[in-house]
């Protein structure tokens, strides 16, 4: 099967374009439907890898440390993200705990793990073993990663409770905020660019464009 590395297809309307080299900060839009075709990467792989390492640390703190601590008449209570998910698992609404755990904990974790696996190889222009499935999973996971919603949820819950209990932020909330920003930078971006970055070293039946 012939492939055309010099072409790009708008995934929103199927228009075909010749792929250009965008200047730093430039974004190519589809002339027909105005969707983003591709954009210049603001990060090189090294910076990307460094931010992914930071995301590992932020993820651990966000999921171990309590996000909020409340006190009512001398009694204290605190909860981490996973305890919030566990709280859903009791009672009539229990099944919703599964997608919740996926969206705020497991999917972000998988995104970070997969990037930690593929990026060190990409840094030296190579494709990691299992690169293709890893990249397919990264693309499929993207809509289901919801740490930013988790952060807003923590804030709304805090305000909601502040009317009748004393509320104090825990270390987890700062880590969740950091993780939100890091995940947007490392995983919401155009991971497909890694294919082009590692193109030259890939052996196989690729037709030259």
């Amino acid at each position, binding site marked *: 099967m012939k492939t055309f590395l010099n072409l790009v297809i708008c995934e929103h309307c199927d228009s075909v374009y010749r792929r250009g080299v965008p200047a730093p900060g430039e974004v190519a839009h589809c002339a027909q439907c105005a969707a983003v075709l591709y954009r210049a990467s603001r990060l090189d792989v090294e910076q990307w890898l460094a931010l992914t390492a930071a995301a590992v640390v932020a993820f651990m703190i966000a999921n171990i440390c309590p996000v909020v601590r409340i006190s009512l008449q001398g009694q204290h209570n*605190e909860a981490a993200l996973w305890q919030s998910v566990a709280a859903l698992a009791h009672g009539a609404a229990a099944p919703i705990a599964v997608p919740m755990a996926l969206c705020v904990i497991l999917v972000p974790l998988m995104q970070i793990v997969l990037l930690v696996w593929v990026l060190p190889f990409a840094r030296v222009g190579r494709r990691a073993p299992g690169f293709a499935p890893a990249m397919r999973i990264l693309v499929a996971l993207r809509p289901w990663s919801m740490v930013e919603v988790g952060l807003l949820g923590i804030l709304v819950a805090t305000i909601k409770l502040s009317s009748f209990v004393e509320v104090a932020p825990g270390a987890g909330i700062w880590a969740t905020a950091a993780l939100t920003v890091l995940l947007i930078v490392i995983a919401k971006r155009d991971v497909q660019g890694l294919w082009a970055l590692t193109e030259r070293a890939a052996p196989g039946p690729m037709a030259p464009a």
Partner: protein
Amino acid sequence: MSLPPRARQLGVVGCHACGLVCEDKLDETGHADCPRCGAALHRRRPDSLARAGAFLLAGMIFYIPANMLPVMYTSLLGSGSDNTILRGVVEFWKAGSYGIALVIFTASVAVPCTKFLVLGLLLATCRRRSRWARRERARLYRLVEFVGYWSMLDVLVVAIVAALVKFQALSDIEPRLGILFFGMVVILTMLSALSFDPRLIWDGDDTNR
């Protein structure tokens, strides 16, 4: 300005997972995998309208119990009450917390209802192969894709509040069945948006389909 050619006219197909542009041999072979990443190649997402319509209908049906049933049970110093989503919004509004009432209203009423309307409109116009306002409809689709998952906010707030407020006799908060339906609405409408193929918006002119 002349519009760019479409993939179908050039006999190419774009891989939905890695973006590679491949020669379209689906007519001869029936099934083909992307030579680069191994994902199955499709000209359009399979059974797009039927799947998106089914998910949307299921989501709309679940939205009724999501609003009628309580999402959370609050007991404070012995007196318990069931809360629905809308009652929570009204209580915040009456208490003078307009900002937080608006955030919850947006996430739990405005966003899901907008999704129902927009996806319904897109499905109806694409079924009729309408050429009306295509750029605007393409924008609407991207809007739905972008805002859709923020509705998960309510589920998270209930989870966090329920995890925190555990003071035996003094006060207790438990999730209730409504939140399960609400979470299902969010997931089903996300699946509907993911199944819908925005390229169908532009397929009105093709007579050979």
